[in-house]
């Protein structure tokens, strides 16, 4: 079915089609369309909608619903996601599945309400306290927002881990036509074994009582949990990396970008190709787990990489780690909510080449 939707609304429809049971959030620009939509639609579907008193409360309501095995989601923007870090750490420590969406705005501090990619570190480096990761998905189109939202619950339940979907405010506001039936943008989450629900708290009828906690004081117990989490994260690193390549086979220089930066870079790449320049684009879809191996493979041919971000240099660190010194890594970025432009990308590429 063909639809024309705003990014933030595609998020809502994807979540509903993905089996959302409860949505909790606090208003913050630029994602207020989400709660407005859910406030109207969810009650009609018999699902839970609640405007929480803060992002702090919202993430904890997600925690509560996640305890029961039902599908919970919250959305916010950068400063609100900062408030949720404690909750995210607990969700990971207690191994509870849920979906959290960050529609990134300019920062740090109160920043502005424009789109940015300034939360890459916050998203991929844990953000909160402790040794944990959330799976981070970075859509770059309204179709991908829809598909990622739809499949993220399954992905979260597969690993008993929160899934973080991040996209800049521009993508949230943008309207695009897409076909719900096309395969484009689908995550195709593979379920090899039945999803384990033996931990769910829903009342001790016909079974022994259960507890959920991340406090482990006995000798060696917390290390055991951390090692268990590491094993899980290693499996995710092996099985869930997603990255898309455009024209990298003969590329002499590859742009590395995600989200809106990738849209802009795609246009720049196409224009440069018309001029005969051998430019490729690498678009990480999972920011965690990052496509280290896949990017390293590209260094066999391309010896120059231009990382394009809407921040002053965050993903570039992962790209440098990926290439392991086999290529030169350059950077072009805009910050404070300013949009990168294909014109500036083209100028940067020409300067490097």
């Amino acid at each position: 079915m063909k639809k024309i939707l705003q990014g933030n609304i595609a998020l809502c429809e994807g979540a509903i089609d993905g089996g959302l049971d409860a949505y909790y959030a606090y208003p913050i620009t630029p994602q207020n369309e989400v709660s407005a939509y859910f406030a109207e639609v969810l009650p009609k579907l018999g699902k839970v909608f609640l405007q929480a008193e803060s992002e702090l409360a919202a993430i904890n309501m997600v925690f509560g619903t996640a305890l029961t095995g039902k599908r919970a989601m919250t959305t916010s923007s950068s400063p609100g996601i900062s408030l949720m870090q404690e909750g995210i750490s607990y969700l990971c420590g207690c191994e509870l599945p849920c979906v959290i969406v960050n529609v990134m705005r300019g920062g740090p501090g109160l920043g502005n309400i424009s789109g940015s990619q300034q939360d890459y570190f916050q998203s991929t480096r844990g953000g909160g306290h402790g040794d944990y990761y959330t799976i981070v998905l970075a859509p770059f189109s309204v179709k991908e927002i829809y598909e990622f939202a739809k499949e993220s619950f399954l992905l979260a339940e597969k690993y008993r881990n929160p899934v973080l979907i991040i996209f800049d405010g521009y993508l949230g506001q943008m309207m695009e036509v897409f076909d719900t039936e096309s395969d484009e943008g689908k995550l195709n989450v593979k379920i090899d074994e039945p999803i384990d629900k033996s931990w769910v708290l829903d009342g001790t009828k016909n079974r022994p009582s259960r507890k959920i906690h991340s406090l482990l004081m006995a000798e060696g117990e917390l290390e055991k949990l951390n090692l268990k989490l590491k094993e899980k994260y290693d499996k995710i690193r092996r099985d869930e990396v997603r990255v898309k390549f455009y024209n990298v086979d003969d590329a002499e220089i590859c742009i590395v970008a995600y989200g809106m930066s990738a849209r802009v870079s795609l246009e720049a790449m196409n224009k440069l190709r018309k001029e005969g320049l051998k430019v490729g684009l690498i678009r990480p879809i999972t920011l965690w787990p990052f496509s280290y191996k896949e990017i390293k493979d590209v260094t066999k041919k391309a010896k120059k990489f231009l990382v394009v971000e809407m921040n002053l240099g965050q993903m570039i660190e992962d790209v440098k780690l990926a290439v392991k010194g086999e290529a030169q890594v350059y950077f072009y970025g805009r910050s404070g909510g300013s949009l990168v432009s294909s014109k500036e990308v083209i100028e940067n590429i020409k300067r490097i080449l």
Partner: protein
Amino acid sequence: MTPTKFVKPKSLKQTHHSYCPGCGHGIIHRLVAEVIDELNIREKTIGIAPVGCAVFAYDYWDFDVSEAPHGRPPAVATGIKRVLPDRIVFTYQGDGDLAAIGTAEIIHAANRSENITVIFVNNTVYGMTSGQMAPTTLLGQKTLTTPYGREANRDGYPLKVCELLSVLDGTKFIARGAVTNPKNVIQTKSYIKKAFIKQIENKGFSLVEILSMCPSGLHMTPLEAVKWVEEELTKFFPLGVYKDV
């Protein structure tokens, strides 16, 4: 009229807890378990433990219990009750958890009249972390962080939770008890029972504040702590039912 036997309730596990000698938590855990057994709701109860001495409550109760980040139990309880409205959901919180870091969460859960029950243990100190001032510490009371006594102009005034929450339209049953002597304990148990019945009848938010002894935090013997709570604390935090609508 005299019961022929007094034995531990089913909802209490065999585990021996590690609370200090004379700590009120032991009594209150038992009261909650007794009420849950008597109301026959064990199989549909989900409890939320606090951060504080009672953080291990899930090891002592024999029904589903989760931990929660400090202060957040009312929000976690909301997340459970909204998707499983037929379960009995309660939080068990200390004075730091509920009245310091968790003030926003408790006020808004109460304001929304979430159909949950809150057991609020008030012993005027932060026991787990060695006895710092709590929001309910009395003026002049010496604690680890008020070694010269709590001063109003620096530390503010003791927080009266029952009084505060009674003002909200969303609260339906608010009561304050104590566990200093058998009469108070029995009275407190009746409050806890009423609170859970409120939830069973879908009447809305209920809270029972319980004045309790923390001998370690107060640097007193168990009997001295009992005397202090019974004589000094009840003067500032009067016992009784504050709201029952």
